[in-house]
């Protein structure tokens, strides 16, 4: 290979999974470059305030006693080439392929990272649920509301209704209330966990009691504060002229199908929290096989027991392989890091692997229980959209338009075919907002399982960039510096230098 390598391992995402993978690989002498869009490590759950904000000690969320030290280690790991405020655009190739080429763009311009392995730890994003009125200003996702609070210390609104099914909703409600907001009501699509469910989850919880305890305490505080928590209730519409003024809430049955009359609750914001979807565009673009796993967030990246995907040299860790919480993300990051280490250096890491495996198994047990307990009823959620509710916000495609296309083209039965025919998913967000709904609608209309309906193909660049950025995508400006700063991997056979 003519061009020098940027690093041994390129890593995208500096959340718990990415930080852990990076530190593990660096500990074993590999040269690591980490790309993240944020300004500091932490990812979503450990999102930090901007460095300019007045200094206050950072407190990790309950249940993650290891968070502070992980962040500290990451922030002081100067042997890792951290590239913040930098977006990974996708994987590209050369006429003769030997290695990974990752295109990025950041404050220093665009760059092409050459690496021997790629670890994708890009996290997750809020699952969108289109209901009538959801495009009004004032409708927000739980993750976003929390991000505003955590990072910018901004309260999204004064009087809020929160609706959804994910346990995060309760934490966010509690955080909003203690920050001074008026939480009008929390509507949970499912019932409160039954004693049977609670018992069933016990086997999975050792080590996570504090986490569950924290949610329970959040509920207790909300109830004590007079906040109405309504189980078996979904939001069926947001109302308002220029902004949310009220929402409609309706009782639902076990399948989340409406029973009875809607009631109106005044609020200036609606917060939706039905869970998360893997942010797997980069993995898809790189060609990794995906697997349908609805409780784990939908389409997840398929991988082996060391987090290797089916694309040679490409690993995935954390939420892209299934939304399973920070504990799991950390364990998988470690596994991926060790997988890369044994792959590249031949070091014997069996003991560490076994340990990482054990903690991953523990985390998985808990994650599976949580996933199943809070799994979204996708058909019922897709049915909340009215015929003229916009499903694809970028291209303004309504549910009615999608169904019309399906009716007019009887042989059409994939998400991609619908995307091509009616532009749903073709806009700047590349379908992050509408894919789930489109897939569910196609499945419902054609009687095929979502696994057959498929997902949208993700394309380069996974986030839009001005054309000029691609014209400049020439080499890695900083690679020289980075290559000198690091020592070479011991026992490495292939080398680009």
């Amino acid at each position, binding site marked *: 290979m003519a061009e020098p390598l940027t690093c041994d391992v390129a890593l995208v995402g500096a959340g718990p999974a990415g930080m852990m993978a990076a530190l593990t690989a660096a500990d074993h002498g590999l040269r690591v470059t980490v790309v993240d869009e944020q300004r500091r490590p932490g990812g979503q759950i450990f999102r930090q305030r901007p460095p300019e904000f007045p200094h206050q000690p950072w407190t990790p969320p309950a249940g993650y006693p290891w968070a502070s030290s992980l962040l500290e280690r990451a922030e002081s790991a100067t042997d890792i080439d951290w590239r913040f405020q930098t977006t990974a655009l*996708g*994987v*590209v*190739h*050369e*006429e003769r*392929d030997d290695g990974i*080429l990752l*295109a990025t763009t950041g404050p220093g311009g665009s760059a*092409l990272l050459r690496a021997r392995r790629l670890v994708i730890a890009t996290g997750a994003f809020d699952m969108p649920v289109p209901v009538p009125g959801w495009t009004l200003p004032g409708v927000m996702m739980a993750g976003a509301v929390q991000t505003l609070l955590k990072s910018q210390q901004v309260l999204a609104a004064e009087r809020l209704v929160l609706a959804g099914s994910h346990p995060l909703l309760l934490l966010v409600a509690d955080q909003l209330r203690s920050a001074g907001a008026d939480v009008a009501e929390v509507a949970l699509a499912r019932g409160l966990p039954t004693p049977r469910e609670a018992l069933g989850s016990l086997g999975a919880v050792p080590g996570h009691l504090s986490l569950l305890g924290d949610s329970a305490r959040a509920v207790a505080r909300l109830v004590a504060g007079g906040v109405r928590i309504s189980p078996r209730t979904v939001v069926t519409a947001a109302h308002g002229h220029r902004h949310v003024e009220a929402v409609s809430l309706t009782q639902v049955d076990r399948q989340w199908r409406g029973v009875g009359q809607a009631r109106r609750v005044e609020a200036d914001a609606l917060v939706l929290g039905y869970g998360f979807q893997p942010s797997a565009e980069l993995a898809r673009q790189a*060609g990794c096989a995906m697997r349908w796993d609805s409780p784990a967030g939908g389409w997840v990246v398929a991988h082996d027991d060391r987090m290797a995907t089916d694309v040679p040299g490409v690993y995935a860790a954390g939420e892209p392989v299934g939304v399973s919480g920070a504990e799991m993300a950390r364990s998988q990051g470690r596994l991926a890091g060790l997988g890369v280490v044994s792959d590249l250096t031949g070091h014997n890491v069996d003991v560490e692997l076994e340990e990482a495996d054990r903690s991953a198994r523990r985390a998985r047990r808990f994650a599976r229980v949580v996933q199943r307990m809070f799994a979204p009823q996708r058909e019922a959620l897709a049915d909340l959209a009215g015929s003229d509710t916009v499903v694809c916000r970028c291209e303004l495609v309504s549910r009615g338009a999608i169904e019309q296309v399906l009716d*007019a*083209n*009887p*042989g*059409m*039965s*994939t998400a*991609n*075919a619908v995307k*091509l*025919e009616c*532009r749903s998913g*073709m*806009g*700047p967000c*590349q379908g992050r907002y509408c894919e789930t709904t489109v897939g569910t609608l196609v499945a419902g209309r*054609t*009687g*095929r*399982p979502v696994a*057959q309906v498929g997902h949208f*193909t993700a*394309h*380069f*660049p996974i986030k*839009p*960039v*001005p*054309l*000029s*950025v*691609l*014209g400049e*995508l*020439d080499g890695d400006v900083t690679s020289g510096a980075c290559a000198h700063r690091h020592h070479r991997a011991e026992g490495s056979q292939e080398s680009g230098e």
Partner: protein
Amino acid sequence: MIRTDVVVVGGGLLGCATAWTLARDGVGVVLLERDQINAHASGQNAGSLHFQLEYRMVERGLEAAQVAAEAMPLHLDAAARWSELGEAFGPSLGVAQTGGLMLAETADQARVLEAKGDLERSHGLDVRLLSGDEIRDVAPYLSPSIVAAAFCPIEGKADTRTAAPALARAAADLGAQVSTRTEVVGLRRVGRGWQVSTRHTDAVGNQVGEEIQADVVLLAAGVWTQHLGQMVGLDLPIIPLALQMNVTARTPKFLPHLVQHAGERLSLKQSQDGTVLIGGGWPARLRRDASGRPRLSERPHLLHDSVVGNARAALRAVPRLAGIPLLRTWVGMTTVAEDQLPVVGPVPGRPGLFLATGGSAFTLGPTFARVLADLAQGLEPTIDLAPYGPQRFGESIDVA
């Protein structure tokens, strides 16, 4: 066992246009598509309706250009058919023949355009050379570095997103049976017709086999034409090719033409939706197995050089593209023959079997469809197919 007059294999633009043409002629037709309608080249291509010789035809000198120009009768026919189709179907085909420009930035390139124009005019194409000043009037969005351009008024575009599905719907309305998720897995000559073995994936994921008997089989299988050929003992020298395309975010309409370049790979146009499509034949890389055979079921690899090269070519020709967000780059697979000419006509030694592929088969789709429909009905096509028929590959392709 189903019986029909004609089986069409492939639900790209070509298969759909052919099924529609046959159905309109009152012929019984079953269209079989393994995946979805429009899922491959026809839904991925640039949608250029180009009638001038392309860069790939002139880059290898005048002699190669002369061979390529032999396809002009097909192109002239296609230009007329697209405008008829556009009127009949309206926005679902998105036909706009508002003229095409081929750009020159150097005196050499301008000379290529001149020679190319002479050749094209001798074949009956309306094309004229514009000077720099004339270009600024016609196309103020072009870079001042453009010194000359060949203008062909009948060039333009159609909407690749929606054209094939619209034709498939129209075919179905006229009685054609359109089956998706149905793969042709065998072709056998039986009596005076063909027995077509198919495999359909049903809603629960089971594979269901079905036999179809037809008098005639038409192959419109794009890059898989070779596979179909193998089913009847033919080794067709049809070359698979992987290419790259790009699209920008929507932007107010400013680019009414099809824009190509005489000195490099570039095609530009603005879609009905306002997005700008950027292509021009930049290669992607076919996936291959260990022995070098292309793996057509896998998405080709995007090449870094093509991403950068295509962006730069577009920026040089139309500088204002610089700030417009690029939304997507994708890849697709298509076919060419060694001589760059299309491949259309009767399959030698296989009565009742016909095929069409190769070259600008989107542009030529409606013409191929007409020709195949004529052949299927035992009619003499109005265009002499001798130069384009697969018989030109000689007898060595017959490996049965």
